[in-house]
């Protein structure tokens, strides 16, 4: 059982991060430039962050534990992101042009999770997922899981072999836990996110992988908290909430609550000054805000879900 102190701190960190994220988008930060076409020049500048907005907002709405203000903020963010991708048309045009590109599908999956639909895009995605080419793209194993989860969210007929996909990841090999590098840690977190769809299916993580995560997650969290990798620490806390009973305690949440700013910003890492320029500060810390909201949300959802199941 999660201790109530953890739940209250998680709730506080997550809701304050949501306030920061919502205020930034309300004030027009992170918009896709008006003249954007399907061949995005710099997808990481606005397009990818919009996908993250759709992700966090749709998971918050799905879990329904955010309270009235958080729920309203999530709804507004999702409406805003849907508008930015021209109600799916931008994704449709990009996918129509690029058969094997997976990002339109991945973004759309988050909208679909919350019921924002684009029938022509779905027909296109269904057709593409029947191509051998769609499954032959040489991408990392955890990225393949991202695509499979997006297909699951959209409800495409293609049924992946989840166990085979999972087995090909870093975690699937249950390697020496001390060999995990910084980038590998992010691959691990994403493997868990996609297999469990951000905590919706804790059993989606095969048991040997879950045992491995439960054994070593406290170490990874401790090691990266010590050097102030707050963004990664938050992703590890999401993982902890996606695998059933938590394997870590108060350490991570207390540390993150202590570094969160009054306006809700959570610094990406300790060894980096937060810019006083709001645009720059938003660009640098929006990902950390997204993972902070998600970490708070799935931690609460898991604990409340467990409570309901036990009752």
């Amino acid at each position, binding site marked *: 059982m999660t201790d109530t102190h953890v739940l209250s701190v998680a709730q506080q960190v997550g809701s304050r991060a949501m306030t920061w994220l919502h205020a930034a988008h309300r004030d027009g930060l992170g918009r896709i430039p008006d003249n954007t076409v399907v061949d995005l020049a710099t997808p990481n500048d606005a397009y990818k962050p919009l996908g993250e907005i759709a992700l966090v907002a749709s998971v918050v709405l799905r879990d329904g534990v955010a309270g009235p203000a958080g729920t309203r903020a999530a709804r507004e963010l999702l409406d805003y992101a849907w508008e930015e991708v021209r109600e799916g048309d931008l994704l449709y045009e990009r996918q129509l042009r690029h058969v094997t590109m997976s990002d339109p599908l991945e973004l759309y999956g988050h909208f679909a999770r919350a019921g924002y639909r684009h029938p022509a895009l779905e027909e296109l995605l269904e057709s593409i997922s029947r191509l051998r080419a769609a499954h032959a793209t040489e991408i990392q194993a955890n990225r393949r899981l991202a695509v499979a989860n997006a297909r699951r969210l959209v409800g495409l007929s293609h049924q992946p072999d989840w166990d085979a996909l999972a087995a090909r990841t870093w975690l699937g090999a249950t390697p*020496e*836990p*001390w060999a*995990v590098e910084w980038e590998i840690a992010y691959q691990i977190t994403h493997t868990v996110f996609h297999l469990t769809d951000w905590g919706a299916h804790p059993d989606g993580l095969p048991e040997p992988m879950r045992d491995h995560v439960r*054994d*070593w997650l*406290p*170490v*990874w969290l*401790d*090691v990266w908290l*010590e050097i102030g990798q707050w963004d990664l620490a938050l992703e590890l806390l999401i993982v902890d909430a996606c695998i059933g009973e938590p394997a870590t305690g108060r350490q991570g949440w207390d540390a993150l609550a202590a570094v969160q700013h009054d306006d809700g910003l959570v610094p990406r890492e300790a060894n980096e000054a937060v810019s006083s320029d709001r645009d720059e500060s938003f660009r640098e810390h929006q990902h950390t805000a997204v993972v902070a909201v998600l970490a708070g949300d799935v931690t609460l959802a898991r604990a409340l879900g467990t409570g309901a199941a036990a009752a």
Partner: protein
Amino acid sequence: MPFAETSLRDDYAAAVERVAGRTLDALRGGGGAAALVDPDTAVPRPLLAAVRLLGADLLSPQLLTGAGPDGPAAALLAEARRALPAPAPPSREAALVIGWQDWAAGQVLARTPYGEAVPPPAPLPGPDELGWQAWSVRMAQLSVLALPGLDGPVHDTARARVLALARGTVRSMMRRDLTTAARLARWLGWAAAEGRPLPLDVGPVLDRIRLAGDGSARTGLELAVARLLLDRSRPSTAERNQAP
């Protein structure tokens, strides 16, 4: 001119390397620590300090390899405990650690004609009180207790909390503190010799530290003891794994 204390520390550290190197030789079937001393001359104090510091490990060849009794090594250890001033630890916690190290030395000396057992000091807090991180650092400081034939409350906690030891080992590996990692891996080897299932594959850890660690004889001694303990749990693999 260097500060006196710095040079004393350097003298002791150099002596520790010599004594650990000799003990390592003995573990591999060579001569013991007593070969360091000419019986007709006075034992230099830094060397005696090194013997005091390595404590029970001086007799690890007898405990681990079935080597015959090493009277001179036991006599040196007894002399070190008699002649040197009692260590002056900076904190109560450090005093407890030293107390347990001395207990271990007393236990192994009691099997020789050179000493007798000392009563166990106060118990140490476990991982539930300290957290697995601080507890494992403490256990690294007590690695000399991870020897066959020594048993007590520290060992009971180690037996019961193998996962915490393994987490401490991985944590130290990732902090690239391979000296602490070696001492914790030795506890895992001990747990394996006790028949406890290990959540971590210790062989690759020992190999990694051997290749990427400080290369000191003292760390080498920890690794060699860990390897011998590990081999006790898997006699069939003893031939395949050469001692580090």
